[in-house]
């Protein structure tokens, strides 16, 4: 690529050009300057018609349906009845509810909007410190990316050719560790600031569970189906969509039939936005691999870094920057295929690498200056971006701590996969 094009395209990207046009432009120019017919761009784009990606529209639709229906409200009520009596209970509720919600909707911006609106007044009413509250709600939006059936996991599996079943299992322990660390911090903060405790009530728990009786089985149906190997990911996505449709429209009737078409369309606009990036990125990736860019990248890095330890550290720094500069889907599609061969040359397990990649992008969501959730949070809570960024700092520290543990304890990502012999 000529010397002036790269900064020009970077500028256009930062000014808000659709990312798929930037990626496609690079691909078109790369193909044309190397004498490859541009038809190849279209051939690669046609590859978006891949069986594994069928899960994406189905899961996205289910997520939209659940978030527009009363699912967030009922989910918060159940977790509150269960955890509300613990000191810092409501903060724990926020963490768990956000994690579950993000896993199912896959787009964490939706979590900040839907969950933030519900939890903000509740947390304030219980006299949680404002700064803690905003930090919690902004950062929890991406919590849950590591849990199945989140879309980013499916995309990572797609580009790395690691089996999605393995990744669905591999993300569980790292995700739980993150929840535990953040939960401990939440409890400590609540104790220190003297947040009053709630009483536990069997009565309320029974009523809350009864209220959500049709939605509570959903995670078990989906995860049970996937983990037992009885259904494929696509089938699980289909079941989720039908289940959510029946629960929200026919049983709870939170969503009227006449609003349904709007939801069908809206969810597919988001899917179109993701898939067109997939289509454009496939061409670029293919070109970069044909041009042996990963090999050259490795040779270049190898002259500087000898040991895997150092490589992993620099990889984290690099991915954090990627995570806060790029959106998660293009990062997975463009950067992951480049990193994968390099990491393999350093003998990093692909499953471990995938988890690290996702964990970094999870953090990138709220890393200043351009983390997406900072902007969505600022829009939702009516607070300046910088204030949210400051409020997120303690959480950022904890996320980074967990990231370090994940980086140097590959067992956390690999142990369950090996123990259950997932393939």
């Amino acid at each position, binding site marked *: 690529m000529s010397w002036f094009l790269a900064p020009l395209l970077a500028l256009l990207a930062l000014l*808000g050009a659709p990312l798929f046009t930037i990626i*496609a*432009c690079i691909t078109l120019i790369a193909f044309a300057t190397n004498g490859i017919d541009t038809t190849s761009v279209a051939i690669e784009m046609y590859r978006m018609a891949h069986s594994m990606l069928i899960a994406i529209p189905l899961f996205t639709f289910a997520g939209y349906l659940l978030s527009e229906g009363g699912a967030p409200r009922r989910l918060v009520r159940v977790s509150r009845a269960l955890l509300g009596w613990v000191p810092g209970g409501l903060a724990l509720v926020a963490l768990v509810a956000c994690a579950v919600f993000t896993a199912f909707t896959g787009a964490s911006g*939706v979590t900040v909007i839907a969950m933030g609106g519900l939890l903000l007044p509740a947390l304030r009413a219980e006299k949680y410190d404002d700064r803690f509250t905003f930090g919690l709600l902004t950062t929890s939006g991406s919590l849950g990316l590591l849990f199945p059936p989140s879309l980013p996991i499916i995309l990572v599996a797609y580009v790395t050719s690691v089996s999605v079943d393995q990744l669905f299992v591999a993300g569980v322990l790292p995700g739980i560790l993150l929840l535990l660390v953040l939960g401990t911090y939440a409890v400590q903060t609540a104790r220190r600031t003297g947040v009053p405790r709630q009483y536990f009530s069997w009565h309320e728990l029974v009523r809350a569970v009864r209220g959500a009786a049709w939605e509570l089985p959903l995670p078990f149906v989906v995860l049970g189906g996937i983990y037992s190997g009885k259904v494929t990911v696509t089938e699980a996505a289909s079941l989720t969509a039908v289940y959510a449709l029946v629960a929200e429209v026919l049983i709870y009737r939170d969503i009227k039939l006449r609003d349904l078409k709007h939801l*069908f369309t809206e969810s597919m606009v988001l899917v179109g936005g993701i*898939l067109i990036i997939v289509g454009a990125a496939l061409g670029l990736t293919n070109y970069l691999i044909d041009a042996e860019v990963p090999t050259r990248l490795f040779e270049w890095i190898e002259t500087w870094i000898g040991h895997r330890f150092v490589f992993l550290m620099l990889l984290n720094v690099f991915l954090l920057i990627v995570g806060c500069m790029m959106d998660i889907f293009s990062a997975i599609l463009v950067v992951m295929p480049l990193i994968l061969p390099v990491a393999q040359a350093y003998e990093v397990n692909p499953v471990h690498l995938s988890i690290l990649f996702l964990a970094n992008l999870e953090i990138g969501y709220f890393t200043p200056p351009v983390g997406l959730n900072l902007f969505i949070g600022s829009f939702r809570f009516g607070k300046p971006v910088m204030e949210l960024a400051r409020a997120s700092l303690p959480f950022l520290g904890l996320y980074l701590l967990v990231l370090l543990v994940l980086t140097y304890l590959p067992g956390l990502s690999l142990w369950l996969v090996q123990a259950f012999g997932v393939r």
Partner: protein
Amino acid sequence: MGGAPGWLSQLPTDGRFLAGAAVLVIVTVLLRLLLQAGPRGRALRAFVHALEGSVLALLLAVMIFLSFLQVVLRNLFDTGLLWIEPLLRHLLLWVGVVGAAFASRSGRHINVDALSRLLPATGMRLARVATNLFAATVTLFLAHACFKLAHEEMQSPSAAFLSVAVWQVQLVMPLAMLLMSSRFLGHGIEAIQGRGLHPETPGEVPV
């Protein structure tokens, strides 16, 4: 397998296609901008909007139904229909490009607009002009690339699913790209005129 009609397979695939497509896009945009002022233009716009939305909704509805049918057949009856899987994959392609075209009408593509948020109003307007004209150009070239692919497929048609040929499915790609190109160009011109972008539904989740 369905062969392509003569006029379609005889369309040029070289630079002449690009030139023709560019003219088509520009004429469409000018027509739209002219019509937009009147009530008839607004009605047409609303109609296209509703039509596109319905197509998207229908595609998803078929995907949900067929994938569910497949689950039921496989798990309860231990059988399956061979054509469902390829059909689903091609529906996915359609959802992808039609959804992307829909996203361009209201500027809802995934982007990183870190810089433009910090700009003053004039800078923001210039940024909108530049990015939209850029996007219009790229999608025009993509339309060309996609048409060449479909055109190659026409020469030796193969089946995508049932008796539908691959080229018939693929034609949606250049069409959607042309539509996107005209929309980006339209937004660019609107930005030059200093008219704002009106999101279809305010308060949409910016994901």
